[in-house]
Each structure stands twice: as C-alpha cells, then as structure tokens.
C-alpha cells in the first residue's frame, strides 16, 4: 500500500476506554487530528496522558472504543467497525514500522538476522536487498555478525530501527525510542530519525518524555488527560 502525498492519517473523535463500570479509564477522549505524509510528529506529555494509546490506535495496534480512523482516505476504524488481528496485521505490515523503548532484538540472532527477521513473515518486493543498505546507512554494517549481547544499547536501537525500516514502511512509530539510552545515544538516535524523515520523507510519529528529542519533530502535540493539544 503506497500512501500518496497529502493526509496519511485522519482521526475523528478517537476514544479509548479501558475497563468497565466504576473501573472505567478513559485513556483517550475524542481526539481528532490529521497527519500528513512526511511529517515528523512528537507526542509529549506526562505519564498516563494517553500519548502511547493515541499512537497505538494510529498505528493500528488496537481498535478504538469509538471514533473514526482513515488511512490514506481509506476507512480503517469507524461506524462500529472492529478489525480482527489478521486485518490489523495486514495493514501494519504494509504501512507501519515500529520501534520501542525495549529493543526486543532476538538474542540468538545476529544483527543482520534480526534486521532481516520481518522478511521471514512478509517481504515487499526487493526488501531483501534493503538489509545491507540500511545497516550501512545506520552505521551498523561492521557489527552485522555480532549478537545483540555484544553491542551497546545505542547500537541495539539502531538495529531495531533498521529492522523497522527493512520493509520500507510509509509511517514509522517510535514509542519512547531513547527511554533506555543515555544523553549521547539519545542524541544519536534523534539525529538518525531526523535524517530519515528529511532524506526519505518517512512519516514519523514519536512518543517521548524527552523535551530535547521532542523538539526534533517538525510538529509537537501535547497530550493531557486523554486529549491532544497542538503546540
């Protein structure tokens, strides 16, 4: 699925409620926003403000309780439509790449094998040619035969970014990508993401607590009590 220029993601009244009855938690409360192709959006805010929940919904990782979501004009959620795991997986593998605070590299696979891992399940045409190119671009080619246990935290996150990019996603979701890294490595990862956004036009949605990292994005959204505020 190729997303044309213009609005990539359009959310209207996205709401996500966890629990039931008196235990009900309204994690996201009627958020509406548009993400345009090529944007680098930072979602910031205190813990429990709903930023991760919003990015999870935008990234088709779960269904909203109510509200609509359109991907490149195509309705994904809405009108009570709940997608099953298979449908969500199909969308995710064609459109999104994900990186997380904990890198989740497979410890018994080498750096190169970890990057190539998604291709064992789904590969866009020519994606297998991307592995070495991405590793080179992220400065990890010299480490490609190392195991994750033999590289630093910053390098592990680079590998995780390479893994997220191997299938040429349209949108990269980064949830606290530097949460486990020191200041120097945080800066390096920030630069990589910014460079990817500028040079390839990759849309990036990044959740972070780190204000410096957040400032790298061209657009900043502050989350408070389940609602989104443009800064």
């Amino acid at each position, binding site marked *: 699925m190729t997303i044309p220029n213009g609005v990539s993601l359009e959310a209207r009244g996205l709401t996500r409620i966890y629990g039931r009855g008196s235990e009900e938690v309204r994690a996201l409360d009627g958020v509406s926003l548009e993400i345009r192709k090529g944007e680098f959006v930072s979602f910031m805010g205190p813990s429990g403000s709903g930023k*991760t929940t919003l990015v*999870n919904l935008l990234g088709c*990782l*779960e269904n909203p309780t109510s509200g609509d979501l359109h991907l490149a004009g195509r309705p994904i959620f809405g009108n009570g439509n709940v997608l099953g*795991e*298979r449908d969500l*997986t199909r969308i*995710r*593998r064609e459109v*999104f790449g*994900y990186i*997380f*605070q*904990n890198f*989740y590299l*497979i*410890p*018994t*696979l080498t750096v190169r*094998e970890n990057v*190539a*891992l*998604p*291709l*064992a*399940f*789904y590969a866009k045409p020519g994606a*297998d040619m991307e*592995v070495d190119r991405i590793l080179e671009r992220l400065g990890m080619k010299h480490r490609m035969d190392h195991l994750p246990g033999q590289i630093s935290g910053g390098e592990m996150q680079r590998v995780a970014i390479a*893994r997220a990019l191997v*299938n040429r996603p349209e949108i990269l979701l980064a*949830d606290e990508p530097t949460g486990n890294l020191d200041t120097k490595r945080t800066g390096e990862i920030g630069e990589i993401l910014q460079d990817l956004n500028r040079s390839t036009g990759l849309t990036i949605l990044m959740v972070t607590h780190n204000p410096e990292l957040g400032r790298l994005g061209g657009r900043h959204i502050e989350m408070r009590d389940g609602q989104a505020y443009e800064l």
Partner: protein
Amino acid sequence: MISKFQIALKNLLRKKARTLLTLVGIILSSWVLVSLLGFNRGYEKALNRDIDNMGYQVMVMAKGCPYEAATMMLQGGAGLRYIEENVAKSIETMPEVDKVTPILMQAFFDPNKGDGGGIAGYFGVDLDTFPGMKPFLRFHKGGWFRNATADEAVMGYEAAELEQREVGDLILVPEKNVQLQVVGILQRTGTQDDGTIFVPLKTLQRISNLDKITTIGIKVKKDADMTRLENALYQLPDMQVVSFSQVKQTIMKLIATARVMVLSIAVIALLIAMVGVVNTVLMSVLERKHEIGILKTMGAMPGDIFRLVWTETLLLCACGGLAGIGLALVFARLSDLLVRRVLPYAPGGELVAIDFRLAFLTLLIIVAVGLLSGVYPAWKAGRVRPLDSIRGEG
C-alpha cells in the same frame, strides 16, 4: 535471509539446558517405544523360527502337561513319561503324516557341571529319520553318527563351545560312566539345537536301560487336515498331542500379558515426554511473549507464529525421536539380554528386531505425539497481541 526454520532452531538453542532435558525425555521414550515394538515383532519371529526349526509341527508324548513338556523340549529338557516305540510306527501309517521320528530325552546329574553340579541333557535321535526332519542342520565339523548303535555324539555349536570339545574328543555320560566320541559339531542355528547333545536313539536307550521313547515328532503333509490328524492322535491311549501352533499361541498369550504391561509403561513414558514438551514450549512461549508481540508488529500472522512454535516442537521431537531410535539400534543386543533375563521362555535368535519400517513408524508416532503436544503452546503463541508486548514494557 533467515527462514522460520532457522528462527525456530535458534529459539531452542536459547535455553540449552532446558532443551537438552526435554530431548532426554523424548529420547528415552522413543528408545523404550521402538524397543518394545521391536520386541513385539522379534519375539514372534524368533518363536516361529524356533518352531519351524523343530522340523516337525506336532509332538506326541505320554499324558502330562503338554506345554510344560513342550517348553522343556524347546529348552532341551526331558519329557515327563515314556511311551512305546511302536506307537511311532502306527502314527506313520496315518494319511496326514509325512514323516515321524522317535526321540528319547534323558537328563543325568553331572556333579562337575557348574558350581554345585547340574543336569546334562541328551537327545536320543533316530539316524534314519531325524536328519531328514531337519535338513537345514549344517555341520561345522564332522558329520552324523556312523551307525544307529555307535557310542557317538553330535554336539550343538554352543554345547561344544561351552565344553571345549572338538571332533574326536570323548565325553563322559554322567551317572552312567559311558564314554561317547564326538563325531560332529553343528553350525550355529540360533535355536535350542545349539545347546543340545545328540546321541543315537539305540545308544541312549542302552545307556538308560530303556526300550522306550519320550516323544514322537511328526512332520505333517502339506495341506493336510490338522484337526483330523489331531483327533486321530487323541484316539491313541494315554497320549498327549502338542501342536506347535497351539504352543505358540499359548506362549504368545503369556507374553501378551507382559507386553500390555510394558507397553503401558511405554505409553506413560510417552505421556511424560509429552508433558515435558508442552512445558518446555509453553515456558518458552511465555518467556518470549514480548518478542512474539514484536514479530506480530513486523507482519507475522497468527498462523506464522503457530507454525514457528510448532516447528520448534517438531525439531525437538524429530531430533529426540531419531536419537532414541539410534540408541535403541546401538543397544539392541543389551535390550535382548535384559528381555531374556526377565522372560520365562525366550526363543533363540534376535528378540528385539528393529528394522527401517519400524524405526520410521516409531519416528512418526513420536513426531505426531510431539506435534499434538505443541498445539496448545502454538495456539497460545498465535493469540499473543502485539499490544501485550508494548504494555509489558513497564
């Protein structure tokens, strides 16, 4: 690029000790299973061969316990009572009978045998009819007796080896102080004949001061009516008829009881191994829940994850099964010895017979049981939602 198979293999290697312990369980189960299935076939085959090598299908002897008599005869022991020699002649006239051979079995106490002495068994056989009954007997050295009354003996291969005898040597019949010259040593047959000392019937009768026999071996004509023959033989006064097909059936029935018990143990071993596989794979799935979630964000479908976990189970079971079968083949002789120790009667030859077909069948059973064990962990892994991995980040 990396395949699902490589991913599964590397996952198993992650916790080597746990994988190894599970493998040991599968190896032991498949070892026990293939050995038991091999015993199932081998024992019957060996018993059939022993009975075929008797050379006759029916034995007639004086009334007593026929199965005990038959077992004693198979083991080289003496019969229970004596019968007149002319009975053989009357049996020979029956239309179903091809050949008959009179046999006298005698046992003498030999004080020099073993630590506290032992029984030395002798088979008195008729030179005119016995060799014709067993044309498959081949001589390692020498040949049959020169005449029907000679003081000579033919020794089975193991009997000669045990007593360190060669052709030309003299052997002393204990209690009777009669010397017999060894004129022939048979080739190994894998049957009870290997441990037997054959003497001319007349000679053994003379030594024992008897003019009777203990047994008549009957070779039945091809396509003869066995039931009719048995009925005719039962008409003979005070005679007991032992058909080897009956003996075989009875022994197999006795063995079947033991077999059911041992097979039950094998099934329990298999179930334990199955639980081990479920435990190992399920633990591995739970430990890798986050990773599985991440695989799903990468585009792995529930079916992909199911197959990945199932491949791990398949690898475990196939490797364990192959190793177990390999060990069973290597230690088949040891299993054979153990089985012989516990069974009241074991025919000669290979008791635990494992061939390619049986090995393949066992491997199929192990893999099928393993795959069945893998269904639940694989199903559980397939249901992991990617969000679980993210929420689990803390």
